[in-house]
C-alpha cells in the first residue's frame, strides 16, 4: 500500500457557503503533511470529514484503502486525533479517560498501553488528576497521549501546539517526529506556526477558500514563488489568493 490517506474531490458546503471545494490529496507512510491556510480556509472542516463527524457533500476518503463511507468504524480504528477544541472530559482523571478511550479504540492490553502513553508524554504526575484541572500544555499532552493509545497509522493533529510554550512545543514536535520515524504512520498536521511547519512537515498543502492552492516541500516552496520564507508565502496566499492562479 502506498497511501495511508487518500482524499478525492472532497466538497462541503454550509448552505450557500462553500467550506471545502473539491480538494484531493494524500498522506503516505512516514510522512508529515501540513495543512495550512488562513482562518476559515476549510482546514477544520476537512479534518472533521476525515474523522467521520461531518458528512461530505461529494468526494471520497480512503484510510488504508478503506472507504470511510462503507467501513467507517474499521477505517477510524486505524486513525486517531487531537485538537485544541476537543479536550478530554474534565470531570474524569487522566487515567480514567485513557482507559475509556483505549477500550473504545479496541486496545488489547489497556492497563499496559495506558501506562506506556502516560510515561511517553511525561504525565505520570497527573495520572490521578482530573483533566479539567490541567493547564493548556498538560491538556495538549493528555490529548496526544489519547491519540497515541491505538498506535494509529494515521494521526490527525489540528493545531496541536497552539497553546504551548516554545520549549514544550519543541518537545511535542520531537515526539511526533519520533512516532513517524519508528512506525509506518502518517500525519496530517494543521498549524499557523510556519517555523514549526517548516521544521516538521515533509510536504505542505496551502488551503484557501476551500481549495488547495499550492502543494510542495515547505523548504523549497517559498523560493519557487519568489518569497524568502514560508510565512511570507502564507501571508501572500491569505491576502492575495488570486495571484497564485487558482481562483
Amino acid at each position, binding site marked *: 500500500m502506498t497511501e495511508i490517506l487518500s482524499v478525492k474531490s472532497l466538497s462541503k458546503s*454550509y448552505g450557500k457557503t462553500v467550506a471545502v471545494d473539491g480538494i484531493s490529496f494524500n498522506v503516505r507512510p512516514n510522512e508529515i503533511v501540513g495543512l495550512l491556510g488562513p482562518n476559515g480556509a476549510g482546514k477544520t472542516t476537512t479534518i472533521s470529514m476525515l474523522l467521520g*463527524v461531518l458528512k461530505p457533500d461529494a468526494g471520497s476518503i480512503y484510510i488504508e484503502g478503506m472507504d470511510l463511507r462503507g467501513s467507517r468504524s474499521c477505517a477510524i480504528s486505524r486513525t486517531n486525533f487531537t485538537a485544541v477544541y476537543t479536550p478530554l*472530559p474534565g*470531570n474524569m482523571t487522566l487515567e480514567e479517560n485513557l482507559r475509556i478511550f483505549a477500550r*473504545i479504540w479496541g486496545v488489547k492490553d489497556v492497563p499496559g498501553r495506558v501506562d506506556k502513553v502516560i510515561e511517553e508524554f511525561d504525565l505520570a504526575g497527573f495520572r490521578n488528576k482530573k483533566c479539567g484541572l490541567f493547564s493548556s500544555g498538560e491538556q495538549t499532552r493528555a490529548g496526544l497521549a489519547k491519540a497515541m493509545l491505538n498506535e494509529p497509522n494515521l494521526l490527525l493533529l489540528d493545531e496541536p501546539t497552539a497553546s504551548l510554550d516554545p520549549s514544550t512545543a519543541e518537545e511535542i514536535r520531537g515526539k511526533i517526529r519520533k512516532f513517524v520515524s519508528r512506525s509506518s504512520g502518517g500525519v496530517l498536521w494543521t498549524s499557523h506556526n510556519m517555523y514549526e511547519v517548516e521544521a516538521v512537515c515533509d510536504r505542505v498543502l496551502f488551503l484557501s477558500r476551500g481549495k488547495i492552492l499550492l502543494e510542495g516541500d515547505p523548504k523549497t516552496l517559498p523560493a519557487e514563488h519568489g518569497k524568502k520564507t514560508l510565512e511570507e508565502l502564507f501571508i501572500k496566499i491569505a491576502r492575495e489568493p488570486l495571484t497564485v492562479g487558482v481562483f
Partner: protein
Amino acid sequence: MSVSRIFAIVLRQFYIVRGSFARLFPLFAWAGIDMILWGFLTRYLNNFVSSGFNFVPMLLGAVLLWDFFIRIMQGVTMAFFEDVWSNNFINVFASPLLISEYVLGLVISSIATSMIGLTVMLFIVVFFFKLSLLIYGIMAVPFILVLFLFGISIGVFGSALVLHLGPASEWFIWPIPALISPFVGVLYPISTLPHWMQLVARFLPPSYVFEGLRAIVLGKEFSGITLVWGGCLAVLYIFLAYMFFVKIYKHSLHTGLLVRHSAETLN
C-alpha cells in the same frame, strides 16, 4: 458490535458517578423522599377507609413503579448529557464506536444507576411501610419490564431531541414524565379521564401497568393479554426512538451540528 466499546460507555458512567457526590446522591435521594412522602400519605388515608382496604399497595406501589420508570428514563438521558456537558461529542463520535454501541451503553448505564434507586425505594417501602410486592404476584415482573422498556424509549427519544436542539433543550426533557403521568393513571383509574385523554392513554404502555396493578389490588379480573399489548407498544417505541436517534445523528453529520453542538443551531 464490540463488547469492549459498549463497556467503555458504561465504565465512563461508573467513573463519573463514583467521583461525584452531586451525581450519586440524586440516584436515590429524591426517589427515597418520594417513598417516605407517599408512604405517610397512604398511612393517613388508611384511617378513612373501612377496615381491610389498604392504600399502600395501590398508591405507594404505583408511585414506586412510576419512580422506577423516571429513574430508567433519566438514567439514559443523564448518561447522554454527560457528553453534552463535557463537550465530548467529537471525542466520542470521531472514534470506531458505532451508534448502536453508544445507545446500548447508555441503556446499560441506566439499568445500573436505576437499580440503585430501586433498591433504596424497595428498602423504604418494604421495611417502613410494609408493602409486599408479593401482592402483585407474578405480574410484578411484567409491570416492571413494561415500565423499563418504556423508560428506555423515552430516554433515547429525549437524548435525540437534545442532540438535535442543543444543550439548553435538556429542560424540555426533564418534565416529560410529568407530562405523561396524567394520561397513564398512576394514581387514578383511566376511566376517570375525559374521553380524549383515555384515547391517548391507550397508546401509552404504563396505562396498562397501572390499570393492572389496581385490578389486582382490588381483586378484580385482569387479563395479562392487555399487558402484552402494553409491552408490544413499549418495544415498538424503543424501535421508533432508536430510529429517531439514528436519523438525528445522521442529520447532524450532514449539517455539521455534531461538531458545532454548542451553537444550538438547527441549520
